[in-house]
């Protein structure tokens, strides 16, 4: 009889190790907390010079084939980079672009190679999937007609403000397709930015009505690519949340070690100490799941073990950042309630990370089907 624990492998390659070191160093250098704060209320949420450097480091092509200029290291190698970005709360279009690349690579054939080349070279891309708050919705109101003209609008399109390529998940003749739309197709009024709870992120409502798709990807691979896209999104969001939770824990413990009340460092009070230990243990679990899932990634359609791992990673990381972001505000006392305290950044990140690509309950609901039925 097989165990409900399933696959228990966890490997970490030399490449992943190097990427983790480089990305952490990069983030420490480029994204100290003052820089994060400087970008909170800008239009794009990031410094274009930083993005250019990330592109020149090859990060937009880590998981793309060598034939299009990528490094073919697989999506598992993007995980340490995204974890590091999360740790520095560095908002750039890397996640959006990477995930768009994965969706295209997994759904299309040779015809999409020019698009992948552009992505590897640093063209910002994003996926327009959601039309409402239901992550699991599969029927799309946005449609494409026979001539390739789109109608309808999408919500929560990340980095829409800077994206050059939009991969719009749509319906044609009742079947799911991916319509690739160039930014030049969008009218001046087509993009309206959301007021996001996480000030380091950018997303918008986008009206694609009247846009002409430069390419419409269809066929059996689309369905499976969409499933994988959601799982990869969950994994990368989990990695990012894990990094953010690690930074949050650092901010929290720094405060507990320096703040005195009633003549004692507050970190000596068990009422604060023990929940902090639970954040720490949650962090260890989340990192473990993120790298376990990274171990099981493949360019081919993801198997059940990979699906289980992605969902577990997201469920654990989401619960972690939610708890950490909540407690970091509370444990700072009065100052924690203010805009100037960095706790604000983490509790806001937590609300973003929780919902993006499905919350913990949603993933556990799907896991129950995989594990118990």
């Amino acid at each position, binding site marked *: *009889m097989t*165990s*409900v*624990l*399933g696959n*228990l*492998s*966890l*490997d*970490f390659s030399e490449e992943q*190790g190097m990427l*983790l070191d480089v990305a952490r160093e990069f983030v420490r250098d480029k994204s100290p907390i003052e820089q994060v704060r400087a970008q909170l209320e800008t239009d794009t949420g990031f410094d274009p010079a930083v993005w250019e450097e990330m592109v020149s480091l090859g990060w937009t092509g880590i998981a793309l084939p060598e034939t299009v200029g990528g490094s073919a290291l697989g999506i598992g190698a993007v995980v340490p980079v995204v974890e590091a970005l999360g740790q520095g709360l560095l908002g750039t279009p890397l996640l959006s672009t990477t995930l768009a690349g994965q969706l295209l690579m997994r759904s299309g054939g040779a015809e999409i190679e020019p698009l992948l080349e552009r992505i590897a070279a640093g063209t910002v891309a994003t996926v327009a999937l959601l039309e409402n708050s239901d992550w699991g919705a599969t029927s799309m109101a946005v449609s494409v007609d026979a001539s390739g003209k789109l109608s309808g609008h999408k919500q929560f399109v990340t980095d829409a403000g800077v994206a050059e390529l939009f991969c719009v998940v749509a319906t044609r003749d009742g079947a799911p397709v991916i319509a690739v739309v160039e930014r030049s197709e969008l009218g001046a009024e087509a993009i309206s930015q959301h007021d996001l709870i996480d000030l380091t992120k950018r997303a918008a409502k986008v009206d694609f009505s009247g846009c002409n798709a430069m390419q419409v990807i269809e066929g059996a691979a689309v369905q499976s690519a969409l499933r994988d896209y959601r799982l990869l999104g969950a994994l990368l969001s989990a990695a990012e949340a894990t990094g953010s939770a*690690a930074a949050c*824990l650092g901010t929290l*413990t720094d405060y*507990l*070690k320096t703040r005195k009340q009633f003549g*004692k*460092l507050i*970190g*000596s009070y*068990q009422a604060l*100490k*023990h929940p*902090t*230990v639970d954040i*720490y*243990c949650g962090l*260890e*679990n989340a*990192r*473990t*799941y993120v*790298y*376990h899932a990274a171990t099981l990634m493949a360019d081919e359609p993801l198997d059940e073990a990979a699906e289980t791992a992605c969902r*577990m990673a997201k*469920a*654990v990381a989401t619960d972690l950042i939610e708890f950490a972001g909540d407690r970091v505000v509370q444990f700072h006392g009065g100052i924690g309630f203010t805009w100037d305290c960095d706790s604000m950044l983490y509790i806001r990140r937590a609300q973003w990370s929780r919902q993006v690509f499905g919350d913990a*309950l949603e993933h*556990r*609901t799907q*896991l*129950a089907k995989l*594990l*118990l039925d």
Partner: protein
Amino acid sequence: MSASKETLRKFRDEVSAWMKENVPKDPGFLLPMSFLEVGTEQQLDFLREWQYKLWHAGYLGMHWPTEFGGQGAEPAFQSVVDMELKKHHAPIIFNTIGLNWVGPMLLDIGSLEAQQRYIKPLLTGEEIWCQGFSEPDHGSDLGSVQTKAERDGDHYVINGSKIWTTLGNYADHMILLARSQPQTGRKYDGLSFFLSPMKVPGIEAHPIRKITGEYGFNQIFFTDARIPASCLMGEDGDGWRMAMKTLEYERGVQAGQASAHWMVTVSIDDMVNELKGMERNGKPLLEDPLVRDEVVKFIIENKALALNQRRARVSALTSDYPMGLALSGKYRGTEHSRRLRQFAVAMQGATGSLFVDDPDAHRGGFWQRAYFTNFGATIGGGTTEIQANIIAEHVLGLPK
């Protein structure tokens, strides 16, 4: 040179066949779930006979030297046996303090004389060992040991009391930590370590009843008990070193234990399989969405424990908190296990109110007993709350 996979596979087949023939059937009375709950003569006789049988077959202390009753084999062979014991749901191998703590400690730092005297009888089960470290006023704080050992000619005279002494009422010997010199400077100085006999006048064991109704722990009272001075291990006043060495074996920091089969293990699969047969409101319990969510949470936590062990071997992924996974293992593992078992009782519905002697109890009240027994793990060896302090202070650097 290490044994080939092929050799070990053949050995496994051999052991498996032996187990099929020789693992005792249910004796019709309750067997202890771990060596901490041996509480009746009936259990003792049964377990002693079983240990002897396993040793006699050459399957116990396999990696210990042949001159002391071992097989001189590689540790991998014992691991195979331990896995087969688990697989065949064999009764526990109960003389754990001797087999897993005292034995390896003596083989490591004991005199040849002590090795010759003590190792074989503890392997065969002929002689039972207990440990006299904890005291009524000092649970885990061993430096504060108050029990006195006063030299009187060829003897030491022992006065004081030890508590939570597993197997203390049946033991032939105790590893005893006592103060033989007044406390000077460091509190660890002046302690001595004895391989003490238990069956001498002035040593009395009072069994302590546990929440399950079972026994296993004792409080030991020493009243002018005279033990031969030759029982002293090492130098007078140098006992702390041996005590710490013993704890390394107790906590599994060092390998060399004679058998890992000292408790009935409970897996997440046991729990899930249990739920598969249960019903609520006329429907399978596992169709209830709230129950499903709880079960998935348990699976995620349980799997994290196993995966964390793997990640602990990847230094690039442990450098942020190098000691973190090791120091938090007990905290994470024992609390998870407690809640898992508690949940398995809760899921029994009305039957969850029945205990082990009720003929209608679910699986003889296995989960009820398993849940209560688990407090040994969340309290013993440093409570969960102390573990949390240790993690906070030593991993996160928070102030004391």
